């Protein structure tokens, strides 16, 4: 009951801060001018707040209990992606002034067809990412208050979609920043308590597991004991690192930053914040292996550990805190994802208006809820891994080549997107519907990034015929790399009213 109350408080405070944040922003004329001078730290916290999802809070610890310490590679990949964001995407993307990936594609390639295609890919990635968020919300509610899974999932859908409509959750940077702090506090503080309360014996067993399957202690990922841990780890690493670079809702956030220079700096700060956060789910995982090693409950192990280590009041309080943190993660990520999805639905595909955007939120929630209901038994991190794999096989090559190579043409991008999206979603679906024997083939299907990413890059490069490079391709790429003081580095003011190129 305490857990449910804590979750309710999180929802309420998010909506209140959201509404208040919108008002404050509107009544302060200087807000946007001030926002150009905002410490990059706030923007970074907002990005981390949206990025650290239920998959990180629950899924990481769960996978660690189920598959072994190699699950830490997910956290490494999630963070490593921001090195590429800082190096390849953040600065030029900010200079382009584009708000979303489809915006950027249209700017760079001057084609409406490519914009629509990108809109479709956004939908696929966002849905794959949303389903595990709803699964996590359902699981948290089921565990903390005994609500049936499907009621929890449907209820979370109602809460999120109405929170977006009422509060406009992502409207203010500090709502997202607040969520990062909330998650960090509700996950980190209980973790420190638990490490203390666990006592020397269990701490020792968590740090140096003896008598556990040697496959578990090997720091490589080996899903379903396929016998090819290096290949699996490499493919997951490719998907998470390159996927983070192509996630539509991540790219979107850099547009609130003052300019190209601070966009890069923000990406670096995000690495610090993620590196700090990801230490804690791993602590839960390591403790969970000692006190709650049941693989069937692995996705909620973060919530089980407090009760097992400290039965009684302390455990109940800590469980409530962690549950609230997990729900905050669900709330912030899913509202960010839903807005990106709704934006894609209404704007890129159907030429949107505000009412269509709202409709898009409702439609997107409905779809995600409907897909989450039968997904109760699918590992959270497996689904999130697919979202990353699709992003890595589509938007990663589109952005990397589009930003740095003048030779990319609309034809090349179209072919590459089709092949990348087709290959990655196709093999993920195949691995679900065909019950393949565990081995190299099953890994290449369930973790396809290792071959679909190079394939998409090659397709984009080869299908871009040389000689058909337009004058605009030349200029559009050069504009992305213009040093700031050379004048109008934001080519199109209509993309955003923030401006801020000084």
């Amino acid at each position, binding site marked *: 009951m305490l857990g449910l109350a804590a979750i309710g408080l999180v929802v309420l405070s998010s909506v209140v801060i959201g509404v208040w944040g919108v008002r404050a922003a509107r009544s302060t004329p200087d807000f946007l001018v001030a926002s150009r001078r905002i410490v990059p730290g706030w923007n970074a916290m907002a990005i981390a707040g949206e990025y650290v999802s239920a998959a990180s809070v629950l899924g990481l610890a769960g996978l660690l209990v189920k598959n072994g310490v190699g699950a830490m590679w997910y956290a490494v990949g999630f963070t490593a992606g921001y090195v590429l964001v800082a190096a390849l995407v953040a600065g030029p993307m900010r200079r382009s002034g584009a708000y979303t990936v489809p915006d950027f594609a249209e700017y760079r390639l001057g084609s409406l067809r490519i914009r629509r295609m990108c809109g479709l890919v956004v939908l696929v990635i966002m849905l794959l990412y949303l389903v595990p968020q709803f699964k996590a919300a359902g699981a948290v509610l089921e565990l903390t208050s005994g609500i049936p899974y499907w009621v929890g999932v449907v209820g979370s859908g109602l809460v999120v979609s109405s929170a977006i409509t009422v509060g406009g959750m992502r409207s203010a940077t500090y709502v997202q920043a607040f969520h990062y702090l909330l998650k960090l506090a509700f996950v980190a503080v209980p973790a420190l308590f638990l490490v203390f309360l666990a006592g020397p014996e269990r701490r020792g067993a968590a740090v140096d597991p003896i008598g556990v399957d040697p496959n578990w202690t090997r720091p490589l990922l080996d899903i379903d004991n396929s016998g090819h841990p290096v290949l699996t780890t490499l493919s997951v690493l490719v998907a998470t690192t390159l996927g983070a670079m192509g996630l539509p809702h991540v790219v979107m956030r850099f547009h609130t930053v003052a300019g190209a220079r601070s966009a890069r700096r923000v990406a670096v700060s995000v690495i610090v914040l993620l590196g700090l956060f990801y230490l804690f789910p791993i602590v839960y995982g390591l403790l969970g292996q000692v006190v709650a090693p049941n693989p069937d409950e692995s996705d909620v192990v973060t919530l089980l550990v407090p009760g097992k280590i400290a039965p009684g009041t302390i455990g109940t309080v800590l469980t409530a805190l962690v549950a609230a943190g997990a729900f905050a993660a669900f709330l912030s990520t899913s509202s960010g994802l839903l807005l990106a999805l709704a934006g894609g639905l209404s*704007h890129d595909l159907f030429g949107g208006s505000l009412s269509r955007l709202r409709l898009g939120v409702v439609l997107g929630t409905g779809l995600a809820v409907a897909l989450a209901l039968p997904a109760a038994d699918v590992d959270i991190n497996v689904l999130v891994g697919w979202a990353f794999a699709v992003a890595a096989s589509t938007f990663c090559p589109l952005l990397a080549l589009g930003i740095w190579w003048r030779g990319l043409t609309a034809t090349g991008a179209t072919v590459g997107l089709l092949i990348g999206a087709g290959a990655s979603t196709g093999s993920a679906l195949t691995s679900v519907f065909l019950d393949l024997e565990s081995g190299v083939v099953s890994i290449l299907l369930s973790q396809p990034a290792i071959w679909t990413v190079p394939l998409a890059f090659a397709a984009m490069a080869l299908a871009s015929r040389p000689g058909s490079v337009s004058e605009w391709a030349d200029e559009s790429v050069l504009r992305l790399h213009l040093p700031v003081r050379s004048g109008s580095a934001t080519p199109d003011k209509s993309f955003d009213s923030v401006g801020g190129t000084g």
Partner: protein
Amino acid sequence: MNQRVRITSPQTRLALRRKTDAMRRVNHKAGRPPIASTAIDMAGAERALRRQRRLALRTALLLGAVLGALLLASALVSGLLGWAVLFFAPYPLLLALAAGHVRRAEQIEADS
């Protein structure tokens, strides 16, 4: 500094963009680039692009090397040391890589 700026939520902005979209489509038909051209220093931008691209490639390759080395270390070492390396080592390395890149990228911008 005292210039008044219109403030809109991202949702409103999206909706408003519909109009400018239509205008830009007209521009497309006229065979003009979708964005108003202002003269840019092409030669300077060209130099900046080449230097930034070399730096970006270098950082990407270094990232590959760092992650590859970590993977190799994980494949060879097992037990307590294995996960300790994976728990502590990656984040400072990633941070150093990204910070180094940003410092160099800003230097290039200051030079050009």
